[in-house]
């Protein structure tokens, strides 16, 4: 099939950026979206044009490195997929496809479609861990039984791949879905409980420092999340945060 690609090009963080138009004339429906871009880049190199820069790595939907805002949607059309899992059969011959970076004040564009998501790392450094040394001399793994429901809920929260689709989708650029998933994973497990109050306060504080916006409960993040992270996590975090704010010694 033949497509018209409208791609965001930006030389660096300080460049203004613009949309460039490229034809894609040899697209097979078996290609993944990123393979379609690989082919485009090969053509651009042949024409002495700098190829389009985009983040990607595992190409099987788990590393969270690929991003892209395609036709106005994070990770493009289709639900429960990352851009690398999106296939060209989702598009029709003659379509025009707009490809932009994930946009947010907290995710500055580095080049073309590549953005800086290190804010997510800093939020987790603020408390996204259990303070246990890696000596191996902890208690036996089965010493504390964990109710299956809690374990399953913690797992569901932990499936977040940290891609940032929630932020890119949110009209407020809020990172609440991401942060709440990380907070929930630990607060649901007995191992994470001793530090739960400090953790939620510190992580939310860091989230605000990074310049993410507030949550106004539109739920768009949940719809676009490739891993189906539930809004319940946000409700849980709000509850934990409120309770910690009232009871914490700080």
């Amino acid at each position, binding site marked *: 099939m033949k497509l018209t690609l409208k791609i965001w090009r930006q030389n660096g963080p300080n460049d203004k950026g613009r949309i460039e138009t490229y034809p894609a004339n040899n697209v097979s429906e078996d290609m993944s979206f990123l393979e379609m871009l690989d082919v485009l880049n090969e053509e651009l190199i042949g024409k002495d044009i700098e190829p389009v820069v985009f983040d990607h790595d595992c190409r099987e939907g788990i590393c969270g490195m690929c991003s892209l805002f395609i036709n106005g949607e994070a990770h493009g059309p289709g639900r429960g997929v990352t851009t690398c899992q999106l296939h060209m059969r989702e598009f029709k011959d003659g379509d025009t496809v707009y490809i932009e970076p994930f946009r947010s004040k907290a995710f500055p564009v580095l080049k073309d479609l590549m953005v800086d998501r290190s804010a997510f790392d800093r939020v987790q450094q603020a408390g996204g861990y259990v303070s246990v040394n890696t000596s191996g001399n902890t208690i036996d793994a*089965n010493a504390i039984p964990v*109710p299956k429901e809690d374990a399953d809920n913690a797992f569901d929260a932990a499936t977040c791949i940290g891609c940032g689709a929630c932020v890119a989708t949110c009209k407020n650029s809020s990172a609440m879905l991401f942060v709440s998933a990380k907070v929930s994973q630990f607060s649901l497990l007995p191992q994470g409980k001793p530090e739960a109050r400090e953790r939620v306060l510190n992580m939310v504080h860091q989230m605000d420092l990074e310049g993410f916006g507030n949550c106004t409960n539109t739920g768009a993040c949940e719809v676009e999340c490739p891993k189906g992270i539930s809004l319940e996590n946000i409700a849980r975090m709000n509850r934990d945060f409120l309770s910690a704010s009232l009871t914490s010694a700080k």
Partner: protein
Amino acid sequence: MAIQLDSKIPEGQIGEKWSKHKGEIPLVSPANKRLIDVIVVGTGLAGSSAAASLAEMGYNVKAFCFQDSPRRAHSIAAQGGINAAKNYQNDGDSVHRLFYDTVKGGDYRAREANVHRLAEVSTNIIDQCVAQGVPFARDYGGLLDNRSFGGVQVSRTFYAKGQTGQQLLLGAYSALNRQVAKGKVEMFARHEMMEMVIVDGKARGIIARDLTTGKLERHSAHAVLLCTGGYGNVFFLSTNAMGSNVTAAWKAHRKGAAMANPCYTQIHPTCIPVSGDHQSKLTLMSESLRNDGRIWVPKKKEDAEAIREGRKHPNDLAADERDYYLERRYPAFGNLVPRDVASRAAKERCDAGFGVNKTGEAVYLDFASAIERYGKEQAHIKGIHNPSDAEVIKLGEEVVEGKYGNLFQMYEKITAANPYKEPMMIYPAVHYTMGGLWVDYNLMTSVPGCFALGEANFSDHGANRLGASALMQGLADGYFVAPYTVGEFLSSDIRTGKIPTDSPEFEAAEKEVQSQLDRFINNKGTKSVDYFHRKLGLIMWNKCGMARSEAGLKEAISEIRVLREEFYKEVKVPGTANGTNQELEKAGRVADFLELGELMCVDALDRNESCGGHFREEFQSEEGEALRDDANYAYVSAWEYTGDPSTSKLHKEELKFENVELKTRSYK
């Protein structure tokens, strides 16, 4: 500097070696640890866990990864699980059994002492991960669940649905973050190691490139840990992430670290086949599918042709028109033969013209029998007498969905075919590399101060890795082995002081890197990096892949040499070295693959036997099975770089088997 291999295996009984050795490693006092810097390259399971552990102990750690966050390293993609000799299921598992299974599974080409240590610390890994909040699967009593994996006789695999790798890596990443927050680890994401710096014969630092600004940076330390994963991407197409590469390990190799058993490659039998020339990577379908799926191709070539051309559908073929070739060739194990055997058998059928997709390189994995069997069972359980075919299929599909639902969904997303209604198409793909940098018992390479952990080293899996053992090894090395064993080297460095980065050695290393970058940028070639990478991959796949022969390997060596020459003449890298340039990054990696590929062929040519993932066509039984030669080849091939892969010098580490009896593996 000639390499001297000393494996430093401690004296004593196999079960006592590690605890005795650990007790005797010189300690570095907390005050002195603050004076010692350690560089960790790579932040997968081995790297993240090592960086976190070393920082906790008090060392100053600098950690590097080329991804935008340490949490994205390719350990994240592991699906199945992690082995540990916990014996929670009370099915007779033990440290010895895990040790034995691993040595045997590796076709008797691993070092006994290392494998035993791995089995010993396996139980600590699970305790540690649970304490960190890793959400492993649990049963209704709230205790940890296990499953069996890869043909062993016990259930020792811990798992977190189909994403055990991500959950374990997030655990190690959280431990790493804790140390970053404390200022004990300085994290350098989007940085690539370009060169290792040797000062007075010791690894004392690296040259790294900031992939965002393009600037070269000098980082010094008292020791350098390479936790940089495997080199499967030498084949271009593999289940590895796009960025996975050999560069860090290869730079160390060029500076004196021996490369061990580079030809040992694991080719996984159940991956989604290549769909066309545009393909960039391959996706694994978990091995667990072979428990219920039956593998077949058409019996008649005409049928295979008709299917390839779309004139026939697999469901049109009756049972007696299908060749269930694994069941035919290996009646005892059938579809559950080990990975290497299943892969070779698929290749044999496709080479003979029975492949079933457009490219002719695919076989069927069919669940119709399982659906029918489970459906009848369910009907019986539910008391439905004389169920209709439709009822049986519906009930059976529900069972199969419960077991493999997420995998079926993943398959459908990629191929747009419904595996409940028609057989899956699968084909083998490169998955893991057992070979890697040679290390001694302390995980130190033949360059003093340079250590290799996880898939980057060679030590634990011999010629074939068992399922769910890679995660175990990565975390064992990072949490429980290297943080202690580095002490033996570092204890002599407490009075050394900071390693200066303005020395002639750093100067020369940086200059070398700069000149390679300039060479690529200024080369006015006509072909893209991928053009060469694809060509290399094809040579490797055809001649150093699932089956190898003397003639083929010799051809491959000369073809790679020609390709390498052409690469330096004709490669085209657009843009500049100042700033993000993904083509430039790829060019450096492919340059190293072009040397490694040749060494892999040299190694495969030297090894006149078939073992594990290494199958030489000349060394097979009349039935086409692998023929190992323990009398002449029970050694580790450790290659010393001499300036040209083909003249690399072979050093042999003889393997001694004192606790496991050498036997032939048979699956008939």
